[in-house]
């Protein structure tokens, strides 16, 4: 069975060839994904950047594409995300603290929560919309308001905030906690004075990224009935509202070509908002990472 001279050389040459071919195919697959990303961004940019001006930023939606703007959608997005953060951030961090610091011994309760969070993260967002529609809009009588939207979004973002915060809390070295306990501190004192100050930048970074994930969600907002045509700014948590993704969806769904340009411009603004949030997260991480590992 020994491979001799010619046969061996032929086999090795064949292997080299398939090696080269595969490298090109696999590298090509990777390139395909990266090129798709580039084309997507360039395409939207070329379609929309001419429409981006002060008028577009400061106008309400209009029946005429050239007079339409994103003001109400932009303000609605900021308003809703603010409310969502107020609701989801403390609860998410609280749950993360519980799971990391209190539920160390695995009992049925913490197992239940863990399995549940893992599964919630995989539930399609539109189903949160159905929950929000029935629970907040109908049963709690909040109507199609910013508050109903924010509550829905809060439930949607909660699993991601919890997962991100847990990772940040887990980084805190047990030595610091033991040191605190050794001085007679209670569990909560240890968490409040030692764990949270160290974990906070990480929690914040993770949470900002989590919020940037849901800021582009349109599906649950459509089901709870956010409207696209809002010619005023939300003035209370109970006023009707729209958000950027809905406004974009609305424009894409119109037959007139002019609105496609508006959609592209709206997308650029949405992407800019996302970019700013991600930049903030990266900045926070860079700034505090060094201190953490001193």
């Amino acid at each position, binding site marked *: 069975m020994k491979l001799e001279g010619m046969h061996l050389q032929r086999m090795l040459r064949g292997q080299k060839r*398939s090696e080269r071919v*595969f*490298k090109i195919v*696999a*590298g*090509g697959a*990777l390139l395909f*994904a*990266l090129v*798709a*990303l580039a084309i*997507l961004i360039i*395409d939207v940019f070329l*379609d929309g950047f001419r429409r981006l001006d002060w008028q577009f930023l400061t106008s309400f939606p209009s029946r005429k594409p050239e007079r339409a703007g994103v003001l109400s959608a932009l303000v609605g997005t900021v308003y809703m995300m603010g409310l969502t953060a107020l609701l989801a951030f403390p*609860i998410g961090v*609280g*749950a993360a*603290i*519980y799971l990391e610091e*209190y*539920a160390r011994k695995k009992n049925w309760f913490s197992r239940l*929560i863990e399995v*549940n969070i893992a*599964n*919630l993260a*995989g*539930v*399609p*967002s*539109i*189903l*949160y*919309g*159905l929950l929000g*529609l*029935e*629970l907040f809009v109908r049963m709690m009588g909040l109507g199609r308001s910013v508050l109903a939207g924010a509550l829905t979004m809060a439930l949607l973002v*909660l*699993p991601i905030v*919890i997962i991100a915060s847990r990772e940040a809390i887990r980084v805190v070295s047990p030595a610091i906690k033991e040191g605190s306990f050794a001085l007679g501190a*209670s*569990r*909560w004192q240890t968490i409040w004075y030692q764990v949270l100050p160290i974990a906070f930048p990480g929690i914040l970074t993770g949470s900002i990224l989590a919020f*940037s*994930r849901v800021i*582009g*969600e*349109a*599906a649950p907002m*459509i089901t709870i*009935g956010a409207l696209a045509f809002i010619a005023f700014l939300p003035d209370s948590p109970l006023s009707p509202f729209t958000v950027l993704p809905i406004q*974009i*969806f609305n424009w*894409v*769904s119109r037959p007139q070509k002019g609105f*496609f340009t508006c959609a592209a411009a709206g997308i650029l603004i*949405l*992407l800019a908002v*996302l970019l700013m949030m*991600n930049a903030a997260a990266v900045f926070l991480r860079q700034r505090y990472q060094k201190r953490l590992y001193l």
Partner: protein
Amino acid sequence: MQLTETLPLGRTQEGGFGFSKSKVMPSFPVSSRRNRQKVREEAIRVTLASCGFLSVLTTLGIVGVLLFETLAFFREVSIFKFLTDTQWTPLFADKHFGIWPLVAGTFLTAAAAIGVAMPVGMLSAIYLSEYATDRFRKVVKPILEILAGIPTVVYGYFALLFVTPLLQRLIPGLSGFNALSPGIVMGIMIIPMVCSLSEDAMYAVPQSLREGAYALGSSRLQVALKVVVPAAFSGITASFLLAVSRAIGETMIVAIAAGQQPRLTLNPTVPVETMTAYIVQVSLGDTPTGTIEYKTIFAVGMALFLCTLTLNLVSQFLRERCQEQYE
């Protein structure tokens, strides 16, 4: 150390631990301070635990709401009709409630998405895990992750106004709304997920197996395809199932680019409607609560929930098994 010599076990006459309490602790009664602290600690623990429990309530809420309205739906429409009728026309005068057209639309778009995401994601994962240098990986992975962070409406726009016109040049007769284009775009969106989950699974394959294969004279490609991929199989299957779950739950891309015509077909070039797109369609109209149209979206939501939950659970099970395998 004198104390321990005179008094075994380090005890003093007062019964404390080697030193008199009054010199170290404040003079007020310690026990009442400890008690107050205990109550406070317990209150905090319960508060934090209820934060965690809220997530369980969310699941119960989703299940409850879906179940409640779905049962109401099935009081008016028989389950038999739901599963056997071949038309879905709840918004017309002549109402039919057969779920299959929506399932077909969902299946078609998801199949196209998987057709793109699986090969591209897997090959990218093999490239990153078996061929690329660490530095290359560190640069490329975050860029790839951007794909997963782009809002789905943006992909919808891209599918409708870039990919569909492009495909129409290649496939004459492709209609403006179709299953193919949003499917492909959805696939692009899922690539990073498939890639990073598969790569994790391949990364978990112990180096000793690779060395064993190299020592037998395998080429890099043979190691990758005959040892690493089979060893990582359950993790790769998990990423596949999760990708399917993502694809059938994805809403905006198909709502924008696939159309709103429920149709029992396996032809990817004609307009279809997915389960998610139907929910959007009804939500956009002003459908009063309590009507049969209103209930249909919950029934469809329930079907969607059951599909994705099953896929997610199986996927999670496989991933855990994959982790255990090499511990």
